[in-house]
C-alpha cells in the first residue's frame, strides 16, 4: 500500500525530477515509511517515484522503485498481492532467486517470467507501473475491480500516472478545470464512476482489468487480462461455496508483517470478517489483533450506535480484549469537514464516510497498519433493500406477475414511495426531466448554465435507471456503486496510512457472485440472504437475523442541515455559479425540513470547488 507516480516526457523539457519530487510530497500520507525515485537514462525521459507503506517485509531492501537485477526493469507498486507466496514458489521452481519476503519482488520476477500473463495469476489489489527495459515500454495496470487507484493525464507531450489526482496537479502546477459532464451526472445520480473520467478535465482513472503499454514513441496499447463472467459461464454460488470462498479470502488477507485489525460496525458483513479472521489467526504474522467500532458521544444518536452490539459480538467470540470503541461527536467542525473534502479529492456521495475517516486515523494512532473491512458485500450480495427490493417489484410488474409483486410489497422492506420513484423512470424523458429538476434537491441546485449545456445527458441516465434487478447488481458491482465505495474507502484509509483489505472483493468470490441470480443473493424479506444463510450456524442470531438499517456514519448521513455549511459557503469563487446555484443551495440547507437528501451532493460540489479552486 503506497503512493506512486510515473512520468514519461516526449518533449525536450528540462529536468523532471524536481516536479516528481513535488508530486511525491502530496502522496506522503499514502506512504509514510519511505520515498524512492528512479530515472530512466534513455529517451523519452521517464521517472518513477514511490512513497512506501511497508506491510510485507518492512526492511529497506524491499523498498521501491525496485529494479530487477536480471533485466533492469523498474517497478513501482501500490497494493497487495495476497497470493504472492504461492506465486513465489512457482517462480522459484522456474529458477528465480528472491532477496526479500515481499510481493513487490514477486511482481518483478513474475513480469520477467510470465509477462502480461502475470496479472491473471495475481489475487489482490494493485496499481502498478513497470518500466520494461527490453521494449522501453511503460507498462501500467490495475487490479480487476480497480480497488487501488491510478490516474492518467496525458497532454501529448507528457504522460503522468499517479495514485492520486493531487500528485498530477502538483506535477503540472495546478488543477485542470472542472469536468461539467461529471458534475452533472453526479448531481443527478450521485454516481460519478460510470465512466473513467474524473471531476477534472483531462484526468482519467485507468480502467481496471487491463494491461496498458505506453511505448517510447507514444503508442498506447491495451489488453484485457480478465473478463467478468456472464451467467452460465461459472457455477453459481451456494451458501457452502460462499462460506468457503470468504473464509479463504480472509485467510489470505490476514497475513502481514505489521499488526492487523478489523473494522467492526456490529452489522453482518464486518462481524463475519472479524469472526473468520479470529478463527484463522494462528501465528504472529497471521493474526487479528484488534477490532474497532465507531460510536457516538451524544446520547441522541444512541439508536444508530451499534457499539454495544459489537461489544456483545466480541464477547461472544471470546476476545473482548481485542475490541476498541472510538467515540466522536457526530457533527464535525468546519476544519474537519474540509479536511475530509481535501482527502477525498473529488466530490463524494455521502458525509457518512466521516466515520471511517475518523476511525482509520484512530486505528493508525494505535499502531495498526492493516485493516480488514466489509466493503463490497452490499453491492455484491445485495445488501441495499431500499435499492433492490423496489426493482424486484418493478420487474415483476413489467412481466405482469401481479401476485409476485403484491407478495414482495407485502414484506414491507422499503417505503412504497420508492417504487413510484423507480417506476417514474419508465416514463418519457419529457416527463422525467422536469420532474427531477423540480423535485430532486441536488438537481434543483444545478445552475442554469450547467443544466442547459448538459441536460441531453438525461437520456443515458434514464437508460441506466431502467436496468432490471439482475443488470442493476452487475452495474452496481462493476460500474457505479462499488467503484464509488472503493474510491472513498481508498482515500480515507490511505490518508491515515492504513492498508484496507476487503475480503468481499476477492475476485474468485466476485466471479461466482456475478453468475448467481440476483434474487438468490438479495432475498425477499431480508437483504443478503445467501450470506446470512452461509453464516447462520456460526454467528449470533442478533447479527444474522437483523435487517440492515445502520452502519458506519449513519448519523452523519442524516444530519445534513447541522453540518457547519454556513461559513463554508461564504466567499465562494463566482465561477462556481457555472455549476451550482449557490443561493438556492443555501436557501434549501436553511430549510428545517432538509435532513437526509440528495442536497449533500450539491454541498459536496460546492465544498470541493472551495477546496480546489478558491
Amino acid at each position, binding site marked *: 500500500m503506497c503512493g506512486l507516480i510515473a512520468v514519461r516526457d516526449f518533449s525536450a523539457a528540462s529536468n523532471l525530477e524536481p516536479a516528481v519530487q513535488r508530486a511525491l510530497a502530496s502522496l506522503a500520507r499514502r506512504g509514510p515509511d519511505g520515498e524512492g525515485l528512479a530515472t530512466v537514462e534513455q529517451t523519452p525521459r521517464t521517472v518513477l517515484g514511490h512513497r512506501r507503506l511497508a506491510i510485507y517485509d518492512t526492511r529497506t531492501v524491499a523498498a521501491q522503485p525496485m529494479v530487477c537485477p536480471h533485466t533492469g526493469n523498474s517497478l513501482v507498486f501500490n497494493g497487495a498481492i495476497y497470493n504472492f507466496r504461492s506465486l513465489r514458489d512457482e517462480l522459484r521452481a522456474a529458477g528465480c532467486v528472491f532477496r526479500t519476503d515481499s510481493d513487490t519482488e514477486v511482481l518483478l520476477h513474475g513480469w520477467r517470467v510470465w509477462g502480461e500473463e502475470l496479472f491473471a495469476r495475481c489475487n489482490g489489489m494493485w496499481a502498478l507501473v513497470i518500466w520494461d527495459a527490453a521494449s522501453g515500454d511503460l507498462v501500467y495496470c490495475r487490479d480487476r475491480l480497480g480497488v487501488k487507484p491510478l490516474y492518467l*493525464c496525458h497532454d501529448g507531450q507528457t504522460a503522468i500516472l499517479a495514485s492520486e489526482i493531487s500528485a498530477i496537479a502538483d506535477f503540472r502546477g495546478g488543477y*485542470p478545470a472542472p469536468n461539467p459532464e461529471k458534475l452533472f451526472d453526479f448531481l443527478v445520480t450521485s454516481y460519478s464512476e460510470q465512466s473513467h473520467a474524473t471531476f477534472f478535465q483531462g484526468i*482519467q482513472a485507468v480502467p481496471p482489468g487491463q494491461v496498458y503499454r505506453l511505448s517510447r514513441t507514444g503508442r498506447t*496499447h491495451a489488453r484485457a487480462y480478465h473478463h467478468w463472467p456472464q451467467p452460465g459461464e461459472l457455477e453459481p454460488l451456494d451458501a457452502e461455496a460462499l462460506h468457503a470462498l470468504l473464509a479463504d479470502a480472509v485467510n489470505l488477507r490476514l497475513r502481514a508483517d505489521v499488526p492487523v485489525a478489523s473494522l467492526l460496525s456490529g452489522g453482518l458483513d464486518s462481524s463475519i470478517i472479524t469472526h473468520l479472521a479470529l478463527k484463522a489467526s494462528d501465528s504472529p504474522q497471521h493474526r487479528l489483533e484488534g477490532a474497532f467500532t465507531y460510536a457516538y458521544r451524544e446520547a441522541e444518536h444512541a439508536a444508530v450506535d451499534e457499539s454495544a452490539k459489537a461489544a456483545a459480538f466480541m464477547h461472544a467470540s471470546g476476545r473482548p480484549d481485542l475490541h476498541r470503541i472510538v467515540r466522536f461527536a457526530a457533527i464535525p467542525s468546519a476544519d474537519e469537514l474540509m479536511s475530509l473534502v481535501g482527502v477525498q479529492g473529488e466530490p463524494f456521495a455521502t458525509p457518512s464516510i466521516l466515520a471511517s475517516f475518523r476511525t482509520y486515523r484512530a486505528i493508525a494512532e494505535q499502531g495498526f497498519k492493516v485493516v480488514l473491512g466489509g466493503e463490497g458485500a452490499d453491492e455484491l450480495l445485495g445488501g441495499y433493500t431500499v435499492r433492490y427490493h423496489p426493482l424486484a417489484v418493478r420487474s415483476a410488474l413489467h412481466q405482469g406477475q401481479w401476485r409476485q409483486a403484491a407478495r414482495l410489497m407485502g414484506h414491507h422492506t422499503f417505503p412504497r414511495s420508492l417504487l413510484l420513484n423507480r417506476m417514474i423512470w419508465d416514463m418519457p424523458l419529457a416527463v422525467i426531466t422536469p420532474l427531477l429538476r423540480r423535485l430532486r434537491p441536488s438537481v434543483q441546485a444545478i445552475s442554469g448554465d450547467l443544466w442547459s449545456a448538459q441536460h441531453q445527458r438525461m*437520456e*443515458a441516465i434514464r437508460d441506466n435507471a431502467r436496468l432490471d434487478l439482475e443488470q442493476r447488481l452487475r452495474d452496481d458491482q462493476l460500474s457505479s456503486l462499488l467503484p464509488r465505495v472503493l474510491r472513498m474507502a481508498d482515500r480515507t484509509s490511505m490518508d491515515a496510512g492504513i492498508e484496507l483489505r476487503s475480503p468481499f472483493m476477492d475476485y474468485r468470490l466476485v466471479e461466482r457472485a456475478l453468475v448467481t441470480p440476483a434474487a438468490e443473493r438479495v432475498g425477499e424479506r431480508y437483504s443478503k440472504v445467501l450470506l446470512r444463510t452461509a453464516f447462520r450456524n456460526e454467528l449470533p442470531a442478533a447479527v444474522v437475523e437483523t435487517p440492515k438499517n445502520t452502519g458506519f456514519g449513519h448519523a452523519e448521513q442524516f444530519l445534513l442541515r447541522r453540518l457547519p455549511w454556513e461559513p463554508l459557503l461564504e466567499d465562494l469563487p463566482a465561477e462556481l455559479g457555472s455549476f451550482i446555484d449557490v443561493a438556492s443551495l443555501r436557501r434549501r440547507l436553511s430549510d428545517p425540513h432538509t435532513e437526509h437528501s440528495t442536497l449533500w451532493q450539491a454541498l459536496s460540489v460546492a465544498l470541493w470547488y472551495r477546496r480546489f479552486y478558491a
Partner: protein
Amino acid sequence: MREALWQRGRAIDSGQCRMCGTTVGQRHFWPEVYANSGQQLRRCAHCAGVYLAPGFTEEGLDEFYAVAYRRLFPAEIPWHSTERFFRWRGDRIIARQRLQLIAPTLAPGDNLFELGPGFGAFLAETAMQRPDLQLSASEPDVANRTALLGQHKVHFVEGLDTLEPGSLQGLVAFHTLEHVIDPLTTLDLAARALSPDGQLWIEVPDLFGDWTSRLYVHPAHLSYFCRDSLRNLAMAAGFEVLSCGPHPLSSLRGNLWLHARRPAQLLQRPLHAEAEQVIQAIDSRISRVGWGARDALRALAKRMAIRVLGPGAVGEWQRWRHRQPDREQQK
C-alpha cells in the same frame, strides 16, 4: 427508449484519443445516432484526431462485421442481380482509376499489398493491367473477397503483422483506415512491411467533405480524418508524405488521398500537436451538423423501409440513387 441497432463488443472507454493516446482536450460532440451504439463523436485537441469512443475490442469488431455490418448498411447487400450490384457500385471503374494513379510508380516485379480489398476489384484490375506485379492482401471477409477478383492470383495473409519486414514495395488502403481500431498501429505495421523507398497510398473519407447529417457518423467508421490529421499520422509512423489532400479523381470527391514514401531510416515518433486553427476548423465543421426532426424522420423512415421491404430492396434503391453518371458512362 432509442432503438439500439448494435451495442455489442465495445472496448472500455479509457478517455484517451484513439490516435495519440492523450487525455487532455478531448471534446465530446454528440452521440452516434446511426445505430445508437452508445458511442460518442470526439475530437482530440492535440493531434486533431476525430473518432468514435469507445471503439471495439478485436473480437467485437469481428462480430460487428460478421453480424451487423450488412444489416446496418443495406447498400452492401446484393439484391437479385450481382452484376447490377457491382455495376451500380462502380467498383471496377473506380479500381481502374485508382490504378492509373499508382501503376506508373511501381517497377516490374514489385510486391504490392492491398489492406482491406473488399470485393477484390482493385486487385483484379491490377492483375490484368500489371501482371508483372506480385499481389498480396489482407481481407477478413473471406466469403466476399474474391467476388470481383475472379481467378487472378493473390496471396492472402491474416494481417499486416504477419508480413516479413521490408517485403513490400507498395501498399494501398482504400477506405480501410477509418474502419480499424488503431490507425496509427496500422500505419506503423505498414511502414514495417514496406522496404526502403516503398510507397503507401491511402484513401479515406474527408472530414471536410460535404456531409450534412449526423447519420454520416456510424460505428463502421471509427475514425474521421482531415488532411492535417492524416498527414500527422503518416509522419508519426515514419513516412515521408509526398502528397496529402483532396482526391485527385473527381469521381472520388469528398475523399482524401495520401501518397507517402518509406524512408531508408524509419523513425517512429509521437503525433505532433496540430495548430489551433486546425482544431477550430474541425470544431466548426462538426458543430455545423445538427440533428432535427427531419433527420430523425429520415433515420426512422430508413429503419421502417428495411423492416417492410427488407434490406436488399433498400440497398438496391440506395445504390441506384447514388450511382454516378460518369461511372455509368464508362460501363
